[in-house]
């Protein structure tokens, strides 16, 4: 499948994806973009131009916390992890997303 364009991502979806990926364990920016790409089978390509501002915004809101550490290749990297508030936020957003997507699917399947 061809990668989706950035504009096709729903507002707020990127946040949800980031929270979800970070929930798996502390990870740096590069790692997040790689994971999203791998897990979505390269359908979703996150532009660095939106990834980093989003990371800072989530950190600012207190959903992500960040520490400097050493990456698997021995480089200094900023590792993001989920805060307690972020975990709650992830649950809320996931719930919202599920309801939304379910509703959308329902409409698409029944409204023939």
């Amino acid at each position, binding site marked *: 499948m061809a990668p989706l364009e950035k504009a096709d991502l729903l507002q707020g979806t990127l946040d949800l994806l980031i929270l979800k990926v970070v929930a798996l364990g502390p990870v740096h*920016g590069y790692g997040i973009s790689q994971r999203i790409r791998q897990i979505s089978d390269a359908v979703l390509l996150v532009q660095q131009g939106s990834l980093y501002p989003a990371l*800072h915004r989530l950190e*600012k809101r207190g959903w992500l916390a960040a520490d400097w550490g050493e*990456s698997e*290749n021995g480089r200094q990297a*900023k590792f993001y992890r989920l805060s307690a508030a972020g975990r709650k936020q992830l649950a809320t957003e996931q719930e919202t997303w599920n309801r939304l997507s379910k509703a959308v699917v329902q409409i698409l399947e029944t409204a023939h």
Partner: protein
Amino acid sequence: MEGLRRLFHRLVPRSVSDDAMDREIGHHIAELAQSYIAQGLTPDEAHRRAMLEFGGCEQVKQTIREVHVSALAESIAFNAQAASRFLRKSPTFSIAVILTLALAIGANSAVFSAIDAVILRPLPYPSGDQLAVLYQHDAKGRDANHFVAPVRLEDWNRMNSTFQAISGYYLDDLSETSGSLPERVTEALVAPRFLQVMEVSPALGRPFTREEEHWAGPDAVLISDGFWERRFHRDPSALGKRLKVGTFSYSIVGIMPPSFQFPNRDVDLWAPSAPDAPYALRREATWFTVIGRLKPGVTLQAGTADLATVQSQLGKQFPKPDADLIVQTEPLKETIVGGVRSSLLLVYGSVSLLLLIACSNIAALLLARTAEREHEISIRYSLGASRMSIVTQLLSEVFALALLGSLTGLLVAAGASHAFHLLAKTLPRAEEITLNWRVAVYSLTAAVATTILCGLFPALRGTRRGLAQGLASGSRTQASTRNPLQWALVMVQVTLAVTLLIGAGLLLRSLQAIARVYPGFDPTHVLTFQVSGSWGETSDMKGVVQRIDRTLDGLRALPGVTDVATSGTLPGVSSLYQTEFKIDGNVQPGHPILADNRFVSVGYFGAMQIPLLVGETCRQTPSTNDVMVNRAFADRYMSGASAVGHQLSAAAYNDFQTQGMIRGIVGDAREEGLNILPVPTVYSCFNAPNPFPNYLVRTQGDPMAMAETIRRRIHELEPSRSVYGISSLQEHLDDASTENRLRTTLLSLFAATAVALACIGLYGTLSYMGRLRQREVGVRLALGALRSQIVARFLFQGIRAAVIGCLAGLALGLGLSRFLTGMLYGVTALDPTTYASVICLILLVAALASLVPSVRAASVEPVKVLRED
């Protein structure tokens, strides 16, 4: 601590550093490049591809920056909105808090503006901290004369290596007679290099030339901005005009800028005093107050050591009198403001205690308020707000209050800075006190500090999660009825109020004690004034003596005048001039005969009503030199009545030699000030200690009513001289104690406010407790408790807080009272009466303040409150 740090970062967000962003982005690019290398690209090519794929680094960084800025802006806007909603929702509460803070921060800022202008800011001369006053001092302490001989000043200036220049001045009060009426002017006669030392130049015209500073050089005078305004209406053509001052005539060469008022704000003229004048050549002829400007980077200590070396060289060169002299120095600023520092700091300390009381008062109010908002807070929690954001919101509300309070307080400070100007007579540099940005910044800082002091505790406490969640179900609470923190705040208020009250009490009792003292002379019905004269006249001392005698005779003949006299210094106004004497030419080694040396005319004892105890009153004739001594002198040095007939002479050699026979012994008088015990005193009976002595006229009626008559008579006698400084002696005595009365008044005012605030705090806390415990009281009453028991329980709580506060206040007061030593008279810093009355007063008002809310708390209707549930 972690919480505080996070809170701080929430209020003042970390600006994201470029370095951190670079490192983060750099890491991404490095990882990307690595993956390309793994795919087989050369490192260079891999790096280029990675950069390309990442896109514009700068653009990404800019977007990140915007994230941070907009988060801050959003947070500010949100909290500001919440705060303004809060203010509008409870206007009475808000206004009460704002007014309390306005008064507390305003008073604090006002006193700060005075401290800033008087103590903290450098003198208004360029590099004012380089200026120092230099004195010559008799190493053996035989002579209190600190003035410096012109020749010695020139030696110091020539021989030192640490001062840029040394100059000096003395003042003459003269008449200027070029106008239609003689006008009194104050002239500063200045040594060479005066303007160079002060580093000022005339606003118009030019400074003195070298020639003008020498004897018999061209005459020249600089005039003050005030004199220029008064006499010439700021007409620039004043330059070159001639002034007739005393017996001299000068032409005006320059006009000084308005800011230059040295040595004091009354100076009208500056004229050179030539060090090479024939009368100035003797090393005993001393008259200059000496000012030196240190070289940049040289400490006063180094300068003093340097001058000490210079003076010891002079001591070898001129053993008499220089061998006995040492050099003393003091920063000029210290000379000007040193005297009021302790008073100002005392007032500042008290007003800061007051601010603390106001803060704890408001903290208690907020504590009660946040407790009442538990419901609102728990709702915000359940909506997903973090504790940090709620605390931030609560603090923003307090900050809004504090900010409004401090802005209103600036109005108070502005009013106070005008009031300070009225104190110019007592407070040095008072005219420099203004409301400026430093005061505004201080006030703003006070608002921030107040926010943290008042708001942090209540906010942290009110947002404890467990409490708030437990309360989400209903608004009734059992948890907060105990409120130890609330009571702790009341105790703090009582403690500080007691401390202030002790200070005020001690000062008040000192003032009372001073008022009860009989000074040994009668200051009522005495008019004082001076008649202009010039030091130049002293070359004909006989003429000066005759002139003053003529004036005294002329005044004595006036109806309504009972006695007249002259005196070098005013009685009851501090001017100690300690001199060592020899009796019949003998000095007793190890037992110096030190006495205050005062020059008075023979009528002085009659005019001041100082009783003659032994012998007769002195006479002054061209051939006699009589002195009188007081009882303290006779008792201490001559064992009583045998003093009469002995010869007294000054031990040190200087121009104003006192020498004469003791004619009689007079009663002790508090010549040095009403609060200073009489010291051994020698009165030299000489009517002309200087060309413009103080006249003392005892009148039958109100002395000020005679002022015009006396002024006219002197104009008849001495048409070319002016009369100045007319006021009653009583007024001079009052002026001398202004600083004392002022600080006492201020401290009493602060203490009264503090007590009022503490009472309000106590009252408020008890009322609040009463409301919280309505249900409990209802149950108790329903179960048969007596209302009097309930009242007693509440009263007990209030009084217990007051008692604990009193004890803590006593301890604090005891500790702080040592700051008052030196300001007290007739009471010790540990005066039991004061402490006891303070305790009684506080307990009484605390009981009164507790009574009303206690009674109200007990007056609930059980049926009503129980049904409400």
